[in-house]
């Protein structure tokens, strides 16, 4: 079986701070990581490969530094890594990005053979749109199952598998045919501590770069100019004021002070006379 995972390199959100004066993110010095949901997609693909045989390919669109993300994916057990990198992609929105990744995936299929299951994280933590994965699935015209939390009863013969997906009110169990496209939740699996041979292979293997020259990507669908989504304005919610500390020597004293503060509110609510 052939599994293809779409991943994105994102700034580590835990370390990004907001410049409250300009309302922009301070990205300087913030390390780049694999989008956390995508890691679980890689893990799922590697586990299926180990169970049923085959190979895992990974593709990432981004600047040359995104090679680090692909190297990490290989050290998690992926076999082939492709970096989709070209200046014509600069400023792409989710429509243009899903087009480019779809075109790159077609090239990967040409080189590595047909794909049984496509994987992506449910969304990226920097954009939070959850549109790119579905955009690629639509172009391939394959079943799309989002928010996957469990993969069961994989049947390579009949080319079917069963999936549990997360809904707001509960869970849904779906049977689908392959090829199909899954976007996954973190609950899908726990990341394993990769065996040393994976790391050694990753260090030895180079990443193949795909661009507008070695794929059939048409520039007229790529980049800022061909991205209908325009960001009109970005703003940050106002910084929360720190709570007021009430200090005192005795519990009664503190309670009295507190009561004085909330009494006017209680009065307007009609709770006290």
């Amino acid at each position, binding site marked *: 079986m052939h599994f293809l995972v779409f991943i994105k390199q994102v700034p580590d959100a835990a370390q990004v701070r907001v410049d409250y004066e300009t309302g922009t993110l301070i990205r300087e010095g913030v390390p780049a990581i694999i989008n956390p949901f995508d890691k679980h997609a890689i893990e799922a693909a590697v586990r299926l490969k180990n169970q049923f045989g085959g190979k895992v390919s990974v593709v990432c669109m981004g600047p040359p530094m995104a090679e680090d993300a692909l190297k990490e994916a290989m050290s998690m057990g992926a076999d082939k890594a492709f970096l989709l990198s070209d200046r014509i992609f600069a400023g792409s929105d989710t429509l243009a990005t899903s087009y480019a990744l779809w075109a790159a995936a077609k090239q990967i299929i040409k080189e590595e053979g047909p794909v049984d299951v496509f994987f992506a994280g449910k969304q990226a933590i920097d954009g939070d749109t959850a549109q790119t994965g579905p955009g690629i699935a639509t172009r391939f015209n394959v079943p799309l199952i989002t928010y996957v939390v469990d993969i069961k009863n994989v049947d390579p013969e009949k080319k079917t598998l069963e999936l549990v997906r997360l809904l707001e009110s509960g869970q849904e169990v779906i049977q689908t045919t392959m090829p199909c496209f899954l976007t996954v939740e973190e609950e899908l699996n726990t990341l394993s*501590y*990769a*065996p*040393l*041979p994976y*790391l*050694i292979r990753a*260090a*030895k293997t180079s990443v193949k770069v795909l661009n507008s020259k070695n794929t059939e990507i048409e520039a007229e669908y790529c980049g800022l100019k061909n991205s209908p989504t325009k960001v009109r304005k970005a703003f940050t919610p106002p910084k929360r004021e720190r709570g007021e500390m009430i200090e005192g020597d005795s519990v009664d004293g503190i309670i009295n002070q507190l009561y004085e503060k909330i009494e006017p509110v209680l009065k307007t609510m009609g709770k006290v006379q």
Partner: protein
Amino acid sequence: MSKKDFDVIVVGAGPAGMAAAYVLAKAGVDVIVIERGKFPGSKNVMGGIFYRKPMDDLIPEFYKEAPIERHIVEQRMWLMDDVSHFSMGIKTQKHNSEPYNCFSVLRAQFDKWFSKKVVEAGALLINETVVTEPIVENGKVVGVRTDRPQGDLYADCVIAADGVQSFLAKSLGLRKKITPNKVALGVKEIIGLSEEQVNDRFGIKDSKEGVTIEITGPFLKGMEGMAWMYTNKNSVSIGIGVIIDDLINHNMNPNDLLESLKNHPSVLPLIEGGETREYLAHVIPEGGYKSVPRMYADGFMVAGDAAMLVDSVHREGSNLAVESGKLAAKTYLEARESGDFSEKTLSRYQEKLEETYVLQDLRYYKNLPELLEEKRYLLTEYPQFLIDAMTEIYTVDGVPKPEKFRKIKGELKSRFGYIGLAKDLYTIWRKLR
């Protein structure tokens, strides 16, 4: 011969391990470096000064491409008590032109750069993997075991550059247990300032030039230690290292020491208003020559901090690490010609180090740790006397100069006694001879 995955396994991607791997990879040896941090430099700590020479021999003119902060043109030495400091130092234009003497660096960036050069040279670098023990067969080290699944690796030779705690050297019985009187705990902050602030406060004209200040004296309350301030491009590294035994006996917490250092009237104006960007701590091996272990076994060599190669008097460590890594690699290359990686062949490594400044410097100061342990007052009372004498000389208060000098002489006699003074001088002379 058992299984073999690589010619050489280097454990630890600090300056020692990377210097060894670089030499080996350049010579076409199949070498793997195993680092436990997220990337080389992520766990590495030093005061912040990197000497040029050994690295320049390895990668000529490395300072033109490596991420260095400033080249050092002025080095100050302060003797400090709670309210004063007595300053000495050297600022020279001889250190202000290429090839330079030493640099301030931030290790997280510098080591990352170094590791890139090592990988370019052909070594394989594996991060986030902990080497747990050596694999020994028939008394010979044949590989290492890591904490990863299927994590055993085999090689002709293992070079342990796994830092001051060196579990590898310990588990082979090469190293004695480190005692708390032979190691210092260093804590350090990187305080962010603007480039102009650093230049103005340290008297620097060009942002490429840097200043170091080493501080010792009575402000340490009789503990053996050293504080330092190094100028980076737009920050200052400030730290303090104190022998762990002293911290315990004085019931002192290194963080509190660093806080009081930062608020000292001589120090505060240099860093005031800065924002702490990083906080780091590390153990520094200060046992000197006598704590240097046997650095080889069958199929095994130890380099850098793992071999306790630190010259605490001259704040040198990373350069000794680079030198030792290089020599370990060269010893391997010689051994490879005969295919003999026995203890006997690899013992040449330590002999080579003895012939260089690395072990000669450490040997020169070999009695110093004990001398200072016996006579802690050398670090407080003489500096205090100097501070007081200088203060007296520079105070104009109507007291005639001859009387001032008599007073200083009287102080010298009452504090140390002439016999005591002669004894101390003789002891120092004899111990360093």
